[in-house]
Every structure is written in C-alpha cells, then in structure tokens.
C-alpha cells in the first residue's frame, strides 16, 4: 500500500511517497517524519477524503494513507 507525506512549505507542499511493502522507502519516510517532528512540525494523519478531520499524530505510521506536516503554529 502507498503512503504519502505532504510537507507544507512555500511551494505549497513537498511530497514524500512510500510503499509500505518496501522497507527502504518506509525508512526514508519515517526518517523524514522524525526529523520534522524534532523541528516542531505538526502531523495529521488521514484515511478518507472530502472533509476528513484526520487525527493529530506524534509517531510515524507506515500504514498511513496520507500525512500532512506543517510548521508549528504561533500566535499572531
């Protein structure tokens, strides 16, 4: 099964895609996730589409369909 991380940035988003059956791809995705979390990024995992609320996650899930990662939020 294919998973996808969308990392929000000034280009819109940068995607990291992995196949959960391929350990090396999973490793790259997990490594990306972990590094961004250390930088304070927020992560939300989704299963469905069209208004899915998703859930906030702290650990990488290799079976996730879609993860959105955003820079930490700050008060305006």
């Amino acid at each position, binding site marked *: 099964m294919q998973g996808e991380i969308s990392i929000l940035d000034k280009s*819109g*988003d940068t995607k990291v895609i992995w196949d959960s059956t391929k350990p090396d791809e999973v490793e790259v995705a997990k490594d990306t996730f972990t590094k961004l979390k250390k930088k304070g990024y*927020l992560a*939300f995992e989704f299963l469905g589409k069209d208004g*899915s609320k998703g859930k906030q996650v702290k650990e990488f899930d290799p079976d996730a369909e879609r993860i*959105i990662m*955003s820079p*930490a939020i700050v008060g*305006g």
Partner: protein
Amino acid sequence: MVPYTSGTFSGTTSPDPWVPWNHIHFDTSCADSDTTNVTICAATWHSWNDSYTAIIRTDASTSTTLWSYWNNRWTQAHPYAVPLCETQLESIRQAVQPTAEQQAQWRKIEEQQAQRREEEQKQLAEAKKRADVLLKAHLTPQQWEELEEKNCFHLFVGDKKYRINRGRSQNIQLLNSHGLVVKTLCAHPSEMIPDADTMLVQKLMLENAEQDFLRIAYQS
C-alpha cells in the same frame, strides 16, 4: 532642495547664488521684512558673515573671500547634499557618467532581476494552486463551495462554530448562535506558506487540538 546657486553662476561675485540663499535664510533681524528686497539687505549679509567667519574662518573678512570659501568648502564636504552651481554639477555628472560597458552590465542585471521576479511570480501562482488543491481535498463540498463564493468556510467543533476566512492572520472568528462574531483568533504556521495551506492547518488544529490552538492563538 532649492539651489543656492543658479545655472548662471559665474564666479565669486555673482549675485545669483546670493539671491536664493538670502530668500531661504532670511535673517529676522533684518529691518527689511520684504524678502523680495532682502538681497540688498546689509543686515542679513553682515549677520551671516559675522557669525560664519567667527566660527569657520577668522580671516575671511570680506564677503567675496567668505563666499568663495563657503562655496568651496561646502560643495567639497557635501557634494550631493548641498545644491551646487551648474558648472559644479556638470563636472560631477561627467565624473560619474557610466561607461557603455557599465550601462550594458546594469541592463543585464535589470533583465536578470526582472526574470527572477517573473519566476517568483510563477512559483507563487503554482504554490497557491497546489495549496488550493490540498485544501479542497480536506473540505466538504459545501465548505469548498462556501469558500469559493464567500472567501470563507465554517466548521463546528463540538457546539462551537468557527469561521475561517481566506488569509493568514486574524482570519478566524468564533461565532455565537446568532452567527455574530464573539472573538477573533490569530494563530498560523510559523513559516510563510500559501494562505490555503495556512487555513488547512488552522482547520486541522481546531478540529484535533482545539485547546492547544486556543492557548497559542492571540484572541481579540
């Protein structure tokens, strides 16, 4: 700035520089209050001459010497700040006249800058498009329709109703049961990302970590 010296300045005894200078620095101690006649007012000239020579040049006792000294000194010390006579300006123009090679180089730099700006505009448009696609994928069809029509969408978190307007900051409103604004909230990703991405994060935070969001957000 009004020039002290006019284009017809021809020497240290020229009255031309003295006329505008006198108009500008009219000494109130001068008995003649008509500034059109102040060019012949001895009081102004003497007042200026006395104080200036006392400070700068004790040996500049005559108006001609002083004028020459003043003009030279100030145009050298402030070639750009102090208005100059036309001949002095012309010599500066000649000194700073760019060569053909320099002009070509500047044109090249300008072209590169224009190209870079155009490229940035393209990237921004592309980023906005990508962010809109991502946001659309995480809104209900009704929310997306609302956003397209009204530049905002609404969401319920428990029994609270929020409105997220298009934008980055000060764009979230908590509404009461009558749809009136109770509070305006401001929190957004720390990095600059397209507005649609920002709105998506705001929505996800409100839906998944409302208390964290409210703790961080500036509220007014």
